[in-house]
């Protein structure tokens, strides 16, 4: 299924001449095969092609088991695709790197480091001086609303706070792309909405490229410029929906906006067809 022929044609024509034509991320006919525990090949992703422009907020939405996280891991360079290539600014992705910063559902904070220590870790690794890393770290802590918690250990924080730290830790080393793997999936509904709002506020300041994996339709529509709807068994792109809603987005306004409601309902219907019945192998 070739969903975006015009875009890839454009790239071929314009790439040598004009820089802006090179997309931030290109996923080019990527397939991923896993071996199951019973030694059978399982096709997790089947021939995925997707282009993500610089500064776009793109959500990958789909039922569990559709390979949406795997796709994110391939862009992160954590997993090598069985077939096809992923490219970042035109060059093939061969491994993880600080230009692509992950934020995981599991937070994955360094438990032996304080909040500040976690956030300073990346910049320090890249040779930023301690004093500078600290002042930047403190600014980030303030930005994610954790002022006063600088010297707390992850163990002492709630789930929402941990995810704020994880976001700040990734932002601290200035990745060009944020890779968010169901980042709010482990949080309660209230905390989740608050973090969505805060993420949008932060994003609207510097408009980083974001690839956001979620299984929540509302979350995807609320946050994204573009929603990539996936279906499973095997994981395929079902449809790409442009979310044409004005920014900055206010949650309370959007909830009343019929356009928002239509997006949610339309995508939810698609979701029902995407195989989330839990019955398929």
């Amino acid at each position: 299924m070739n969903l975006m022929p015009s875009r890839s044609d454009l790239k071929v024509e314009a790439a040598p001449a004009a820089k802006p034509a090179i997309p931030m991320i290109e996923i080019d006919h990527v397939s991923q095969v896993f071996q199951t525990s019973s030694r059978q090949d399982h096709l997790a992703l089947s021939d995925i092609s997707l282009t993500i422009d610089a500064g776009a907020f793109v959500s990958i939405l789909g039922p569990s088991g559709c390979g949406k996280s795997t796709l994110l891991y391939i862009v992160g360079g954590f997993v090598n695709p069985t077939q096809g290539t992923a490219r970042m600014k035109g060059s093939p992705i061969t491994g993880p790197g600080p230009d692509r910063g992950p934020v995981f559902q599991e937070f994955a904070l360094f438990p032996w480091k304080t909040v500040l220590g976690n956030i300073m870790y990346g910049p320090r690794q890249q040779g930023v001086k301690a004093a500078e890393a600290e002042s930047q770290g403190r600014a980030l802590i303030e930005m994610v609303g954790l002022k006063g918690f600088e010297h707390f250990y992850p163990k002492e924080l709630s789930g929402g706070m941990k995810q704020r730290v994880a976001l700040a830790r990734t932002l601290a080393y200035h990745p060009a792309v944020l890779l968010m793997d169901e980042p709010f999936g482990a949080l309660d509904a209230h905390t989740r909405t608050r973090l969505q709002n805060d993420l949008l506020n932060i994003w609207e300041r510097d408009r980083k490229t974001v690839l956001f994996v979620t299984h929540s339709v509302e979350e995807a529509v609320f946050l994204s410029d573009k929603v990539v709807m996936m279906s499973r068994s095997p994981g395929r792109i079902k449809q790409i929906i442009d979310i044409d809603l004005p920014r900055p987005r206010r949650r309370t306004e959007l909830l009343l906006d019929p356009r928002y409601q239509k997006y949610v309902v339309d995508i939810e219907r698609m979701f029902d067809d995407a195989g989330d019945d839990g019955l398929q192998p």
Partner: protein
Amino acid sequence: MTLRALIARLAPLLACLGLLAVWQIAALALNNDSFPTALESIRAIPAILDDKEALINILASLRRMAIGFGTAVLVSIPLGLLMGRSRGVASFFNPLLMVIYPVPKAALMPIIMLWLGIGDLSKTLVIFLGVSLPVIYHSFEGAKAVEEKMLWSGAAMGLSAVERLTRIVLPAALPEILTGCRTGLVLALITMVTSEMIARQSGAGNILFNALDMGQYDTVFAMIIIIGAMGICLDAAFERMRQRLVRWSEPQFDIPLSFS
């Protein structure tokens, strides 16, 4: 300080006094020459500690123990961590370790003495072997349990494989590693004494077993008290260091429960 907190604080002291009391009563009841009372044994301690030669013996023991323990920890932690992160390394070393693990290290002493003599080297090697296995095992388990996504986060920050091992796996596994080291410390003391039982020449074990041969039972039990006290002190010192190093992993609050 509440009464409850006071009792909690004094509990170790009370336990020691209780043990001595039971010992005293049992010895009086049995009235056996080879079982001196607690008081008789305690009275024999100053004589040992005043004797310069005995002190040199005990210090020699401690020195061997420190060297054996230290080298074992230095070798075992990296090996355990590598095993925990690499399936190849693990499947190579696991069978070897499983063969060595159940063998009492002191039982190897006679063979090692044949190779290396009855000097320091043999005894230190036995201590080394005794300490290594629990430290390797716990480092291995600790490294295996490190959350995968933590390593991914490190990789995204640009940490190389070696840096991920030393700067993520090592600190993340530290609580588990230190549990292994604590077991190793106790085993170091045990193998120290047993190695000196087999290769008499010097050391705390030498004093103990010579006294046993000569029927000086108060000295025997005094040495048992001294070795026991050394164990308690070493363990307490280690525990203090451990708590300082892994404060981040300890539970933060003691919620006062309404039941217990």
